C-alpha cells in the first residue's frame, strides 16, 4: 500500500514557542519544590563551573607564578600576557582556516540536505525512502572506522594537506543528523499550504524556496549551528588529512600548543579560552535554535 493513498494528518496549528517552552502552561507535578533534585542540580553546576573557573583564572596568571599556587585561588595580579603570547603565535591564521572550514561545511550540508529532506517528506516513493533510510543508518557510522580508507581516497584525489581534505569528509559526516533534524522540521509544514500552492501551479522548486524553507527556519538554524559546531570542533580529519602549517585548523593548533608551550600551562589554557570564544558568541545569539532543535531528538 502506497503512503500516498493514506490520509495525512495535517498540523495546521503547530505549537507556539510559548506552549512548548513556557513553564507556566504546564504544571502540577513539579509544583512542590524538589529539594533533593535541586541539590543534585546545584552539585552538577559546581562540577561544571570549577574547571571553567580554574581555566579562566589560570589563563590570567603570569607564567612565573603558575607552578607555585593552586589553580583554584584567584590570580593575585591578573595579566593578559598569556593571551598575548597565544595571539602572536599564529592564532589568527588558525582561526581564519577554521572559519573557512565551518562556512564551507555549512554550505555543503545545507545545499545537499535540504533537497534530500524535502524529497523524503514530500515525495516518499521507494527511492526517496531508501535515501532517507541510508542516512538513518549513517548516524551510526563512526568516523574513526573509515579514516584509513578516507586517507587513501583523499590522497588519490590529490587533496592531502589541503583545507578541502578537511571540509569534504566533515560535511559528509555532519549530514545524517542534519537530514534527520530537517525531515522532522519539514514535516511540520502544513499540507494545505502545499495544496494551495499546487493549485496556483507552483513548481516544486518554487514551493521549496517560497514555502518550505521560510517555514522550516527553526530546523535549518539547528542544522547550521550543528554542522558549524562539527566543523569547528573536528579533530580527527584535520589530524590525519593535513600536515603543514598552511591548512592547519584551530583544534590541531591547540594540540600542537601542548608540545610547543610545554610547561607554560597558563598560555595553553589561554589558547583554550580563545578557541571557545567564537563558538560561545554564536551560542549566545542562537541558543534557542540549537537547544530547541536538539531537544526534539529525545522526543521521537
Amino acid at each position: 500500500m502506497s503512503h500516498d493513498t493514506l490520509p495525512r494528518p495535517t498540523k495546521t496549528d503547530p505549537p507556539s514557542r510559548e506552549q512548548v517552552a513556557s513553564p507556566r502552561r504546564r504544571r502540577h507535578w513539579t509544583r512542590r519544590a524538589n529539594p533533593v533534585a535541586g541539590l543534585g542540580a546545584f552539585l552538577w553546576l559546581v562540577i561544571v563551573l570549577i574547571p571553567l573557573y580554574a581555566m579562566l583564572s589560570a589563563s590570567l596568571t603570569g607564567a612565573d607564578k603558575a607552578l607555585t599556587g593552586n589553580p583554584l585561588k584567584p590570580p593575585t595580579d591578573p595579566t593578559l600576557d598569556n593571551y598575548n603570547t597565544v595571539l602572536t603565535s599564529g592564532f589568527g591564521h588558525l582561526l581564519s582556516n577554521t572559519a573557512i572550514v565551518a562556512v564551507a561545511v555549512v554550505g555543503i550540508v545545507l545545499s545537499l540536505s535540504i533537497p534530500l529532506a524535502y524529497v523524503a517528506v514530500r515525495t516518499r516513493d521507494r527511492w526517496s525512502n531508501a535515501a532517507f533510510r541510508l542516512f538513518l543508518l549513517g548516524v551510526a557510522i563512526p568516523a574513526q572506522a573509515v579514516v584509513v580508507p578516507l586517507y587513501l581516497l583523499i590522497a588519490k584525489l590529490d587533496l592531502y594537506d589541503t583545507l578541502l581534505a578537511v571540509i569534504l569528509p566533515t560535511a559528509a559526516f555532519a549530514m545524517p543528523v542534519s537530514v534527520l533534524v530537517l525531515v522532522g522540521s519539514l514535516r511540520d509544514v502544513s499540507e494545505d499550504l502545499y495544496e494551495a500552492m499546487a493549485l496556483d501551479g507552483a513548481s516544486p522548486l518554487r514551493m521549496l524556496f517560497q514555502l518550505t524553507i521560510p517555514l522550516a527556519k527553526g530546523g535549518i538554524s539547528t542544522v547550521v549551528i550543528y554542522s558549524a559546531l562539527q566543523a569547528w570542533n573536528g579533530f580527527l580529519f584535520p589530524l590525519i588529512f593535513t600536515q603543514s602549517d598552511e591548512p592547519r585548523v584551530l583544534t590541531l593548533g591547540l594540540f600542537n600548543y601542548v608540545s610547543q608551550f610545554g610547561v607554560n600551562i597558563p598560555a595553553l589554557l589561554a589558547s583554550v579560552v580563545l578557541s571557545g570564544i567564537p563558538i560561545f558568541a554564536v551560542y549566545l545569539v542562537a541558543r534557542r535554535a540549537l537547544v530547541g532543535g536538539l531537544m526534539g531528538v529525545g522526543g521521537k
Partner: protein
Amino acid sequence: MTVTVEKARTGKPRTANRAGRPHAAWALPGVLFFTFFAVVPMALALYLSFTSWDGLADPKPVGLDNWKKLLDDPRMTQSLWLTVVLTFASWAFQTVVALLLGVWAAGRQRNRAILSAVFFVPFLLSSTAIAILFYALLDPNFGIIQKDTLGSQSGAFLAIVFVGGWQFIPFHTLIYQGGARQIPDVLYQAAAIDGAGRYRQFFSITLPQLRHTITTSTVLMVVGSLTYFETVLILTKGGPGTDTAILPYLMYEAGFKTYDFGYASAIASFLVIAATGLSLVLVRLTGFGAMRSTREGM
C-alpha cells in the same frame, strides 16, 4: 477548483497532487556525496583489511593475515575489554546524571533556564580543548589534585570517564529534557489523585515514558564513546603503558604511527561491525523501531 480543495481536505486519494511533488532525483547529489565519503570508505576499509599497505605503495592482498593477527594480538584483547568497560562506565555515569538533570530541568524551578544555559557550556568546547583543559588541571605540579592522577591505571581510566561525562552530559541532559516535556501531564494528575508520591511517580511514570529517549541517548552514547579518541590521545596517550589504549587509539597507532594500514583497517572494520551490531541489538531489545513508526504516521 473549490471541488479539488474539498476533496483534499477529506483526505481522499488525490491524483492531481503528484504534480507539485519534487522528483526523487533531488536526493541524488546528497546521497552520492555521502556514499562517496562515508559508505564507500566502509567497504574500502574491509578490502584494505585483507591487504598489506604502508600508505605509499599500492596495497598488496595478504588474505586473512591481518585478521589472524587481530585474534592473536594481546593488545587487541586488552583494548577490546577496555573499550567495553569504558563504554559501559561512561554510559552508566552519563545516563544517571543526564536523566536526573533532564527530568529536573523539564520541570518548573526558579533559575532553571539560567542553570540549564550554564550546564550547556562544556558541550560548546571541542573535545580537544576539553582534553587540554583537564590535562592541565590534572597536572601533578600545576593541577587541582596535586597527585599524578593520569600516571595510575585507575586514575587515568576514571579521568577519561569523568572528562567524557563532563563534556557530553549537557547534550544528553537536553535530550532527556525534551523527552520529559513530552510526557502528558494527565498521567501525573491521575497518579497524584491515586496518591502516588514523587518517587513513585518517577519510577512508574517518568522512567517508563522515557524508554525511547533512553534508547536514543544510549545509541548516541555507544557510538559517541568511540570518539573518545581525542580525549585519550591528549590526556593519556593510551597510557600508563597501554592501560587506556581503546580500540580507536590502537587503530590510530597501527595506522598512523607504525604505518601498518592493513592491520589498522582490520581493527577499523572490527569497530564498524561491533558498533553496528551493538546498535542493532539495542534497537531490537528496546523497540527503537518506534522511530520508524512515527515516520510512517506522517
